[in-house]
């Protein structure tokens, strides 16, 4: 079953990125990688991150730096199964709604509670991955059951037509 292994932290604020990396490093099962620009993150998408914590603003990274929404769109286009969590100093609801509209899993405001919230978001993503895995398993089992039932009915029809089974059960 799929679970969270690789996490990217993408932020041009080195302190914010390091604090989040330090906070999440207590979970030794996660491989955490920090990128200081969205472009660097996009170049490394072949590592198939399960979660990307992505800054919304990249003003300092250079005049032509892609903004968070553009990077979010590129990630979702290249890796639809990667969950993107936007992190921003913006506490305006319209900004949060906009990121969710483009496929972000959640939106976290940079504050003292941001680190604890990031941890909760990871657990929510793991929970959702498990549910999706279970749903896929039940779907496969239902399909298998349907195929078996159809095969059994076909077998009965064939045996009936060949005369190997009586028109009515013997006990009637």
């Amino acid at each position, binding site marked *: 079953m799929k679970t969270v292994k690789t996490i990217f932290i993408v932020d041009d604020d080195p302190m*914010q990125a390091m604090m989040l990396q330090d906070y999440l490093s207590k979970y030794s099962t996660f491989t955490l990688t920090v990128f200081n620009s969205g472009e660097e993150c996009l170049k490394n998408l072949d590592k198939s991150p399960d979660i990307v914590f992505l800054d919304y603003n990249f003003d*300092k990274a250079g005049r032509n730096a892609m903004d968070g929404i553009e990077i979010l769109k590129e990630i979702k286009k290249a890796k639809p199964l990667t969950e993107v969590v936007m992190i921003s100093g913006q506490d305006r609801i319209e900004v949060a709604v906009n990121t969710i509209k483009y496929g972000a899993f959640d939106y976290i405001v940079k*504050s003292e509670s941001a680190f604890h919230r990031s941890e909760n978001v990871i657990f929510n993503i793991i929970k959702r991955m498990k549910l999706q895995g279970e749903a896929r398993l039940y779907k496969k089992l239902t399909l298998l059951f349907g195929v078996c039932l159809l095969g059994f009915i076909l077998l009965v029809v064939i045996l009936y037509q060949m005369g190997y089974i009586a028109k009515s059960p013997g006990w009637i």
Partner: protein
Amino acid sequence: MERTTDMTFLKSFTGGNPDKMKKYISMFLSYCPGQIQTMKDQLEAQNYDGLRGTAHALKPQITYMGIKGGEDLIKGIENLAGTKSNVEKLPEMLGNFQTICTSAMEELKQEIA
């Protein structure tokens, strides 16, 4: 004399580990003066979009270092520069912000000394 900084969050975040505290405080001390200078340059050049961006980027660090008096000011600078309204208030606000940060940085230097 009343302190400018409140280390409650940073102590809790680092579990009181002095090495980690030192690491984050040192990062802030090396980052903040340059950002203030950038904001002053942007204000002088009337580059309000740039000023908004720099204030926005510095805002979380001010919160993490517990510089309570600086939080409202940096938010105010970000908002005014973003809306480009009441820009005549910006020099005073930035001056006050710099004064608070200078005092905060002195306290932080003592914290890791």
